[in-house]
């Protein structure tokens, strides 16, 4: 049997995942600034600032964290690292960061030049990353359940990106657009958030909830079928139209609701009951995602409701900020200190006397810090929700949002400083 293709120990250099993690909070802060100075962005759907806000958070923050986490997780779950060198990772990070800023500018000042630059940055950044990810994914078989979700999520990301590019083309340079938008804005958003974002959350939860919190495993059948079913309902919901599409959309929301109930039950049954803010972040996220599904179902049933209530915005804030971002915030509280510890330990293996003085995970990110992060995130979420009804309060919500991301960035920075200190 060949074992030489296996790279068990191929944890990537720290600078690759950490680089993504360190850049991402800056985009959260940028999003907060956009909201602070353009408060109408919260509710005016087609407002350029609103579109910039959405993409600063999804591409600048969430996508960068997820790419960093994928670099770290792939060798652990599959023994196949993503074959990305340090320089290439830097290029990916640089292009996606630049592309996100350019995209935001293109929304504000539509035109063919900015559009071309945005396109170039994303093609290089995502093109390089996704092609490397696919290279790693095809080498792996048989695929475990997490990998099924990662594969489907990567597919959704690709669809989202392509659809986004075409939409942007139409917006900024309609004369040169080669083909009509295949997916409309709603569909682009749906593939991005409920496809890519949610599938990663689902896949990660199957793996980490039993693992970190000593909870029962998710039923094998659910692990096998749920990601595919979610994806299929999205796909058919996009291809079909009329009442069949509505029925499928409703079905997919119900599936997500079922998932939230199941995951919450598993969390409740965890046997590791220590105070843990990652658990709180998961609970918040599952609750918010479930609520947002209820709002979506209400909208499907009573299409005239959104005329009276800001339901689309409500659902987006719950799902995005209360759900996806909360999962990311919660996971970072564990992944980052673990990563730093792992690298410190590797470097001290030859000096056993140093090993005993290494900071542990809770010294790298203390429970008190995570607790503050949790409160800041909850407060910012409440701020955003209240501002939907009291627009005057939007600048306050923006400040809370900024505080949330500044605290995250500062926490990551402090942990890294401690790491550096022990390295010397």
């Amino acid at each position, binding site marked *: *049997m060949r*074992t*030489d293709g*296996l790279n*068990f*120990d191929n944890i990537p250099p720290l600078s690759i995942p950490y680089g993504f993690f360190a850049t991402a909070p800056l985009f959260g802060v940028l999003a907060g600034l956009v909201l602070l100075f353009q408060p109408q962005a919260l509710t005016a759907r087609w407002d350029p600032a609103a579109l910039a806000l959405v993409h600063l958070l999804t591409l600048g923050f969430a996508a960068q964290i997820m790419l960093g986490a994928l670099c770290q997780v792939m060798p*652990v*779950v*599959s*023994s196949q690292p993503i074959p990305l060198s340090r320089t290439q990772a830097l290029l990916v990070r640089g292009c996606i960061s630049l592309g996100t800023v350019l995209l935001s500018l293109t929304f504000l000042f539509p035109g063919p030049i900015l559009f071309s630059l945005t396109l170039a940055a994303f093609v290089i950044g995502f093109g390089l990353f996704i092609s490397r990810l696919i290279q790693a994914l095809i080498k792996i078989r048989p695929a*475990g359940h997490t990998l099924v979700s990662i594969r489907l999520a990567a597919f959704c990301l690709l669809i989202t990106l392509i659809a986004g590019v075409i939409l942007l083309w139409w917006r900024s340079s309609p004369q040169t657009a080669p083909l009509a938008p295949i997916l409309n804005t709603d569909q682009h958003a749906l593939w991005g958030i409920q496809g890519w974002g949610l599938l990663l959350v689902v896949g990660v939860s199957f*793996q980490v909830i039993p*693992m*970190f919190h*000593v909870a029962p495993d998710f039923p094998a059948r659910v692990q096998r079928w749920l990601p595919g079913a979610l994806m299929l309902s999205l796909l058919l919901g996009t291809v079909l139209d009329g009442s069949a599409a509505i029925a499928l959309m409703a079905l997919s929301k119900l599936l997500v609701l079922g998932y939230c109930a199941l995951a919450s039950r598993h969390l409740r049954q965890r*046997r*590791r*009951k*220590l*105070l843990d803010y990652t658990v709180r972040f998961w609970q918040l996220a599952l609750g918010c995602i479930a609520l947002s599904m209820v709002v979506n179902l209400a909208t499907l049933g009573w299409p005239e409701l959104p005329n009276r209530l800001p339901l689309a915005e409500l659902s987006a804030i719950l799902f995005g900020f209360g759900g996806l971002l909360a999962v990311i915030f919660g996971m970072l509280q*564990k992944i980052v*200190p*673990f990563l730093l*510890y*792992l690298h410190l*330990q590797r470097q001290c*293996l030859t000096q*056993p006397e140093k*090993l*005993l003085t290494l900071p*542990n*995970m*809770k*010294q790298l990110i203390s429970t008190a810090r995570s607790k503050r992060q949790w409160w800041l995130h909850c407060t910012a979420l409440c701020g955003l929700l209240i501002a939907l009804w009291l627009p005057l309060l939007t600048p306050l919500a923006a400040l809370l949002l900024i505080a949330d991301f500044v605290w995250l960035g500062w926490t990551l920075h402090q942990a890294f400083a401690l790491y550096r200190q022990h390295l010397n």
Partner: protein
Amino acid sequence: MTSISEFMTSDHRRCDEFFNQAEEAVSQGKWDEAQQGWSEFQQAIEHHFSMEEQVLFPAFEQATGSTAGPTSVMRMEHDQMRQLFAQVGQALGAKDADTLLGASETLMILMQQHNMKEEQILYPMSMRALPDPDNTLNEMQQC
């Protein structure tokens, strides 16, 4: 009959259980119980390690003709975990709950990602590579 995968996976869970008891006792300030739970955990996990280091890994290395592959990484991770056992043991002696819970959190995550590599990759691979997996399992169980 159980396979290497099933047997070792359930042994991981058994170790988790002891670990859990010890950690929870510490968080409630029940030091005697913690001591008890911790020594049960140590016993269970050292037994688990020796089944691997003395039987499974050598058999795997012989079957694949390589000592530099996955097993060397697994051995290294065992050593990394032993370092943390020492830290937790020290904190337990000093009844220093903060240091202990910090070290145990680190150990927990290290252990879980190690288990995941074994359960998802190494055990299934051993069952395919070993000439007589059932016999190896027997030897492991007598360890």
